[in-house]
């Protein structure tokens, strides 16, 4: 059945992938044994005259229940509506609503029920009087119930879209389009002030923003009974969102101070979970993702791996091995026995390339079949296109890439990968060879895999010809992909 899906107008790349992931989680693609080939994505349509970046879309979902589940769990769906009518004018709308079959409408207009009508114009604010006039204009619909503005059984929305000459940055809508529908479900945006970082007990410089953390948990389909792992757990900001959705969480970090000590007995990862009444992670450990402590033969443990690896821009990654040792500055050394117990191993810089290689290897081995790897990948913005080659791995299929522009120079892309093939001996061997190659060529990777200079170096180093800011004009004016 086709529903009208209206998004919050932000984080544009994230909107549809979130709905697709949640639709799959709530069973939208089951019962497709009769269709050939099996469906694993939704059908979408744009309303007449609307641009793909518009918040208004039509989506085909198997049932109202699935639509409600998807909408209520989402973060970016302003509402999913059963459409009763649409038109380019209020007269056309009235005709359309009158044509809508009674079996659809009457069950929600009964005398015993309560309702509310909300008038919304995308891109313009209209006065209360105008809103009231429009509501009165709907008198031809036989509402028999009572009005309840606080907590009605049914919410009806009258939505108008038009070119108001406003500067929301979207290409102007050529012709007015009006929709009227019954709300099936909507995102619970109250989660955001509840979980906002501003009020969080224990923060770190790269703690994940609450809204994005929830989007990541939705991309990973975190749900009760699933085991979710974050190999760069830090303050636990990503695990919090997974725990909110009922998943069992586990995390590791190479920095023991962040994970074990925090900033005190009441200011650490555990206190973050306590703050929200969430079940604690079942395991936190200090481990190096480059040399993980797993027993051989351990595999397919996690349902999802969700993380934000260090890009080397604001927080550098570290790995074991001793930085001077790897650079060849000193020869191999042994820690004297009497100093061993409290020895803090020297860690070396960890390039993004090696970090991602290790992450993919970990995920390929430790995810269950069909499990999801969701992580951020930084890209330099050059000439408008992110024609980047995202990391690939034979065990994975990339199902979503959602860009979030961070600055003029770079963005990060949330990649969602699904494990589609088992981790074989050959794949393990290839990974080991690559691991040794990184180790041998430590210095080379430090330079080549370095994003930091790309982001922070002065402009004239980037544009060799000396044209200052040539591409600022060609970048889109509206903030669509910024937060």
């Amino acid at each position: 059945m086709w529903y009208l899906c209206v998004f919050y107008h932000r984080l544009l790349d994230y909107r549809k992938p979130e709905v697709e992931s949640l639709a799959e989680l709530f069973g939208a693609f089951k019962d497709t044994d009769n269709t050939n080939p099996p469906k694993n994505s939704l059908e979408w349509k744009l309303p007449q005259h609307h641009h793909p970046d518009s918040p208004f879309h039509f989506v085909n979902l198997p049932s109202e229940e699935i639509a409600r589940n998807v909408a209520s769990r989402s973060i970016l769906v302003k509402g999913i509506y059963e459409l009763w009518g649409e038109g380019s004018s209020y007269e056309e709308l009235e005709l359309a609503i009158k044509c809508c079959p009674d079996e659809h409408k009457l069950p929600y207009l009964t005398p015993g029920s309560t309702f509310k009508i909300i008038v919304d114009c995308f891109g313009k604010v209209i006065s209360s009087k105008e809103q009231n006039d429009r509501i009165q204009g709907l008198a031809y619909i036989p509402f028999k119930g009572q009005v309840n503005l606080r907590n009605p059984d049914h919410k009806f929305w009258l939505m108008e879209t038009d070119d108001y000459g406003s500067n929301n940055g979207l290409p102007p809508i050529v012709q007015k389009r009006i929709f009227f529908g019954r709300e099936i479900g909507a995102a619970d945006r109250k989660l955001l002030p509840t979980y906002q970082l501003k009020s969080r007990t224990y923060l770190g410089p790269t703690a994940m923003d609450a809204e994005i953390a929830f989007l990541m948990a939705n991309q990973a389909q975190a749900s009760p009974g699933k085991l979710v792992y974050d190999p760069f757990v830090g303050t636990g900001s990503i695990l919090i969102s997974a725990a909110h959705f009922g998943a069992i969480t586990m995390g590791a970090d190479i920095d023991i101070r962040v994970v074990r000590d925090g900033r005190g007995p009441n200011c650490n990862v555990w206190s973050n979970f306590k703050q929200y009444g969430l079940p604690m992670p079942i395991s936190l450990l200090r481990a190096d993702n480059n040399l993980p402590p797993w027993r051989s033969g351990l595999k397919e443990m996690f349902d999802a791996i969700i993380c934000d690896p260090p890009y080397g821009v604001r927080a550098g990654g570290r790995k074991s091995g001793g930085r001077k040792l790897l650079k060849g500055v000193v020869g191999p050394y042994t820690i004297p026995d009497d100093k061993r117990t409290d020895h803090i191993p020297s860690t070396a810089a960890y390039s993004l390339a090696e970090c991602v290689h290790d992450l993919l290897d970990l995920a390929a081995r430790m995810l269950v079949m069909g499990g999801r790897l969701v992580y951020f990948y930084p890209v330099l913005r050059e000439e408008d296109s992110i024609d980047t080659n995202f990391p690939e791995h034979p065990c994975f299929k990339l199902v979503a890439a959602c860009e979030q522009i961070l600055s003029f120079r770079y963005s990060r892309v949330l990649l969602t990968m699904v494990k589609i093939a088992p981790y074989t001996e050959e794949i393990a061997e290839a990974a080991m060879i690559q691991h040794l190659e990184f180790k041998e060529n430590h210095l080379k990777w430090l330079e080549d895999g370095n994003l930091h200079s790309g982001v922070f170096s002065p402009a004239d180093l980037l544009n060799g010809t000396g044209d200052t800011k040539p591409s600022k004009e060609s970048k889109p004016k509206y903030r669509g992909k910024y937060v």
Partner: protein
Amino acid sequence: MRLLTHNMLSSNIKGVANGFPLRIEVEKVVEKQVDFNADFLKNMFAKIEWKALVDASRSMGYSELPGDANPSMLDSDDFLQKFHHALLELHLEEGALVCPETGRKFPVNKGIPNMLLHEDEV
């Protein structure tokens, strides 16, 4: 550190042939309540090394687990409760995990095992 975690860890020091399971040196054990989830337990049963779990739980002072287990036992609620307790509710707060081959100790402090290798173990 819970026994579920212990069951996943091994000493991967260079040159060690088999660093699993790590011997547990107990200094402080705490019991922490965790919500019971039968599906999660059944899922985990297939992935863990049973003998290592039994030995580990004994070293933590819990001897209720049967020495051998097979999937049919998952139907028994009594078995599931014991499994749940051993896997998730026994917590090594302070102590160490010891490599079976080299004797090297990986400390466990405030419940968090430190599995980082020294420069010469890499």
